[in-house]
């Protein structure tokens, strides 16, 4: 639903004559990147810089009985070979827990394994040499004596008494358990006409960023200061944690984050090898570069999903959903990641299941267990794809059971658009969602009835197409409720400083970061719009803890909603300051003046009064000519954090149209639609591309991506030939539509859009496959939906 803003002052800030809000404008950083002038960490070369290669465990679980590096140390170019215990003199271990996730436990994790390795790929030694190739040559000659231990690999048996306990000090392999019980679930099931159950299985997958994780750490002993160049989503978080574990003050650590080649949540965590690189720089007193290669990216970049979730839904014959119940199990590797923890995904699943629907009856259990596999943590749309696939899968199964159209059952159960504010059965508070408006728009965009007719006609010819629908909600703009309340030193607030320079150009420093989603562009758009200057005058600076205001960064769909609002507020202050001075110079009053197209004009008729460059000249070079008592403040800083709602929920609905070759099990995606509501849209193209990119990652999970481990905990497809990322050839056209319900918590009204696509794509595809297979009586609740899975379900093999 499109909500008109009531506050007229707000309207003026956003809808000014040369506003860029709501317009597709090219990104300011595009030419730089397209001309190869980006600066990625791999591009950074410093004097005396050495390269580190990590020798990684070939075993999933083993004792380290000895490391012999004597031959390796003699190799050309080798500077040092450092073991975990040697490195522990400069860096302390950490434990990835948060106090608000009650009962969450984990074991101390070291930068390099000491005495024991807990997953295949964990670093056991660092080889530092003048070049990466020399370090790799030497690493081959480091001999490690391992004693293999039982590996815990199957999450289903991780809690069995017969299964080895990975960390004896923890007592068992249970990292976290959450139980939730709302309403009267048993009674609701008892009163239902039908109760349907299914087990949903989600493959473990990973982010596969184009640019791997990379860091250059430069300990300057003379300054007693560490500069960390790193592709990260959260520079201030890295600063805090590096300082904490290296025994430094935050002021002794500077984190610089220039261009980043994709992140998707992969680069928002603290990785052991990155910590080891900081520590090595301090130990060896020189710059050290670590760039993960593709194999180690697969083995050490966080994995995600890997859930098995039993679900149950009750429904009456009139289509009323009476209750949801889930029992979710996930295996997270041997350690809870630091500092955001690996319990968040399961926690989100509990939070989000049933979220779009009216029923108040909801019971959930989530268990998070340790395993000897790579660590798992937050990746784009944390928990959402699981929750959405389970919820929407159950809704479709219920509809199928009572013979109701999937659209109709949703119409009858989605929370009404005029019912807000309200809360979900798990206690989440919704400010304003638009499920019904979104669904109506989707049906129109996709031509639902015509597609159904086409499906029926083709079925008669042995062509099996399916339609899948998935409504979803998305957590965006997180407040301190996400991490801060649990004790993590991760800012939920962001800050923007904006200033007018002497020739009328605008410099804007923001604490949000850019990994390709357009943070720089949206910030410049907001600043240009609010101030009344053209975007080409606005220069945005991000990613440097010495320069930008303190803040959270870009993750959890928060950059536009939180960082954007800070930019808006800071620029409003700057605008007021400029108009105050202009009024004094022009012997007018601020209220009679405005700034349009880089100049001060009469608010009433737009008559030009004075260019900003001329005003700036006076302020900076001839302040003596200003009236007495006037001190210009052409720089303003503002911060913003949501306070009223812990999260700004968004919503939307997706649809998939696909064809299943029932002889071969291959799925051809024909078309995908998304309608979503992220509130105010700053740059429609950026939002649409965020949605499309997110959908593609969701489609990857639906059809292709899976980290395949064998029973001994070996990752068997750690390369781009065997781990299948979605490619353009298999992707359908993705139509994106919007409904706009701005959040009233900010003047900007923007909510996040970064994860909506990923949240619902796999659910839509799975529902569509099941719709296509309906004549065969086959139901599949496992992704990725490989030909092997489909043929097996069809009984063809």
């Amino acid at each position, binding site marked *: 639903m499109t909500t008109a803003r009531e506050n007229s002052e707000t309207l003026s800030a956003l809808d000014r004559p040369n506003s860029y809000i709501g317009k597709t404008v090219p990104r300011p950083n595009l030419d730089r990147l397209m001309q190869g002038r980006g600066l990625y960490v791999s591009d950074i070369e410093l004097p005396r810089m050495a390269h580190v290669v990590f020798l990684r465990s070939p075993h999933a679980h083993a004792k380290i009985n000895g490391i012999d590096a004597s031959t390796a140390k003699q190799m050309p170019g080798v500077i040092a070979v450092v073991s975990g215990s040697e490195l522990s003199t400069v860096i302390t271990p950490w434990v990835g827990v948060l106090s608000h996730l009650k009962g969450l436990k984990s074991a101390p994790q070291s930068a390099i394994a000491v005495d024991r390795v807990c997953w295949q790929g964990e670093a056991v030694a660092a080889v530092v040499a003048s070049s990466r190739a020399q370090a790799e040559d030497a690493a081959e000659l480091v001999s490690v004596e391992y004693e293999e231990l039982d590996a815990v690999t199957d999450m289903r048996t991780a809690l069995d008494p017969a299964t080895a306990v990975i960390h004896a000090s923890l007592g068992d392999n249970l990292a976290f358990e959450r139980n939730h019980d709302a309403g009267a679930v048993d009674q609701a099931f008892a009163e239902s006409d039908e109760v349907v159950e299914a087990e949903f299985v989600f493959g473990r997958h990973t982010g596969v960023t184009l640019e791997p994780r990379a860091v250059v750490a430069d300990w300057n002993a003379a300054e007693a200061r560490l500069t960390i160049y790193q592709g990260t989503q959260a520079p201030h978080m890295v600063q805090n944690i590096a300082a904490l574990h290296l025994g430094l003050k935050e002021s002794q650590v500077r984190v610089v984050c220039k261009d980043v080649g994709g992140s998707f949540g992969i680069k928002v965590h603290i990785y052991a090898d990155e910590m080891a690189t900081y520590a090595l720089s301090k130990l060896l007193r020189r710059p050290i570069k670590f760039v993960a290669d593709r194999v180690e990216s697969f083995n050490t970049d966080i994995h995600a999903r890997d859930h098995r979730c039993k679900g149950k839904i009750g429904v009456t014959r009139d289509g009323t959903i009476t209750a949801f119940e889930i029992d979710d199990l996930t295996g997270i590797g041997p350690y809870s990641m630091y500092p955001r923890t690996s319990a968040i995904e399961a926690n989100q699943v509990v939070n989000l299941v049933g979220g779009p629907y009216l029923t108040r009856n909801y019971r959930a259990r989530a268990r998070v267990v340790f395993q000897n596999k790579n660590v798992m943590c937050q990746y784009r749309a944390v928990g959402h794809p699981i929750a959405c696939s389970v919820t929407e899968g159950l809704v479709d199964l219920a509809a199928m059971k009572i013979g109701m159209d999937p659209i109709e059952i949703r119409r009858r159960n989605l929370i009404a658009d005029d019912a807000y504010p309200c809360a979900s059965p798990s206690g989440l508070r919704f400010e304003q969602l638009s499920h019904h408006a979104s669904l109506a728009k989707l049906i129109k965009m996709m031509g639902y009835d015509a597609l159904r007719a086409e499906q029926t006609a083709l079925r008669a010819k042995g062509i099996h197409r399916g339609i899948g629908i998935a409504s979803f909600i998305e957590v965006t703009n997180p407040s301190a409720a996400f991490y801060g309340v649990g004790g993590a030193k991760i800012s939920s607030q962001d800050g923007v400083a904006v200033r007018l320079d002497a020739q009328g150009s605008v410099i804007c420093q923001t604490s949000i970061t850019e990994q390709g989603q357009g943070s720089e562009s949206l910030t410049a758009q907001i600043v240009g719009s609010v101030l009344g200057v053209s975007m080409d005058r606005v220069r945005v600076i991000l990613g440097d803890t010495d320069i930008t205001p303190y803040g959270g960064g870009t993750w959890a769909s928060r950059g536009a909603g939180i960082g954007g609002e800070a930019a808006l507020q800071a620029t409003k202050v700057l605008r007021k300051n400029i108009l105050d001075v202009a009024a004094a110079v022009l012997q007018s009053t601020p209220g009679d003046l405005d700034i349009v197209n880089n100049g001060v004009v009469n608010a009433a008729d737009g008559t030009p009064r004075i260019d900003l460059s001329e005003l700036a000249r006076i302020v900076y070079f001839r302040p003596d000519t200003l009236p007495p008592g006037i001190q210009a403040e052409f720089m303003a800083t503002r911060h913003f954090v949501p306070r009223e709602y812990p999260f700004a929920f968004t919503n939307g609905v997706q649809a998939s149209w696909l064809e299943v070759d029932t002889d*071969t099990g291959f799925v051809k995606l024909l078309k995908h639609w998304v309608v979503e509501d992220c509130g105010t849209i700053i740059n429609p193209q950026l939002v649409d591309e965020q949605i499309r990119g997110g959908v593609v990652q969701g489609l990857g999970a639906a059809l292709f991506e899976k980290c395949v481990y064998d029973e001994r905990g070996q990752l068997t497809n750690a390369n781009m*030939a065997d781990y299948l990322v979605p490619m353009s050839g298999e992707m359908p056209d993705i139509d994106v539509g919007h409904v706009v319900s701005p959040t009233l918590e900010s003047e900007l009204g923007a909510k996040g859009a970064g994860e909506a696509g990923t949240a619902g794509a796999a659910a839509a595809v799975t529902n569509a496959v099941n719709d296509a297979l309906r004549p065969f009586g086959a139901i599949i609740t496992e992704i990725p939906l490989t030909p*092997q899975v489909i043929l097996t379900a069809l009984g063809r*093999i």
Partner: protein
Amino acid sequence: MKASAFAYARATSVADALELLTAHGERAKVLSGGQSLLPAMNLRLIAPELIIDIGALTELRGVVVKEGVLTIGALTCHADLLKSPEIAAHAPLLTDAVAHVAHPAIRNRGTIGGSLAHADPASELPACMLTLGATIIARGPGGERRIAASGFFAGIYETALAPQELLVAVELPVPPKNSTHFFHEFARRQGDYAIVGLAAQAFVRDGRFTDLRLGFFAVGDRPLLARSAGKLVDVAITPAVLAEAASALNDELDPLEDHQATPAMRRHLAKILLARCVSSLLARPELRAGASA
């Protein structure tokens, strides 16, 4: 991912390359397009002491048709195969197949000789060589050797080539006029290695096959020229005949397990391909689901 240190020599002539191969034998690897060799080296799966780069040997590049024989130089890259009018005219099966070889960037570098010498059982071109009855021309210290494609592929990444030999060309007999072909592979994504593929060449007269050559790939440790094709020649094709051929095919296959498919799935897909191939070549849509029903 950096390769281990290796020596590098850029061969200036075939004779030069052969001298180097004679001197270094198994310690050396020939670099053609490098599309399989270099990833394997960077992953340190192999660590040759010497790389013999034959990229400058232009005499090994190109396509010639003469007296009913199509000769393709070993260094002819996939992209050139794809746009060669001679191949399109005389071996259109190969044109269709090359379109399935990886992606344009790889097709620009990868060569037919490299693909055949590498002998990945899931590659398209080795199977095409079987189907088209190719002869592989190798040169070694003792001169030139002509090896029938049917005897060339010896296992996963294994061929009849000796370490001192260089694959210099392939010769294809130009198929008779009115010959038809079929190529299809099942791959998870466009450009991926096939789960199962089929390169077929046939001669059809009065609705019957008078000749049918079925080159399957990714169905075992090497490409397979299916003997069961014989069950479909000179007979009226009925679903029962097709089913019998499919059953015979099943007995010939020895598929491997990998991330994409179990042996059972490969057998199933091979039978599907057989039915689709026969249906397509005979233009009889009703046979499309034949063997799998």
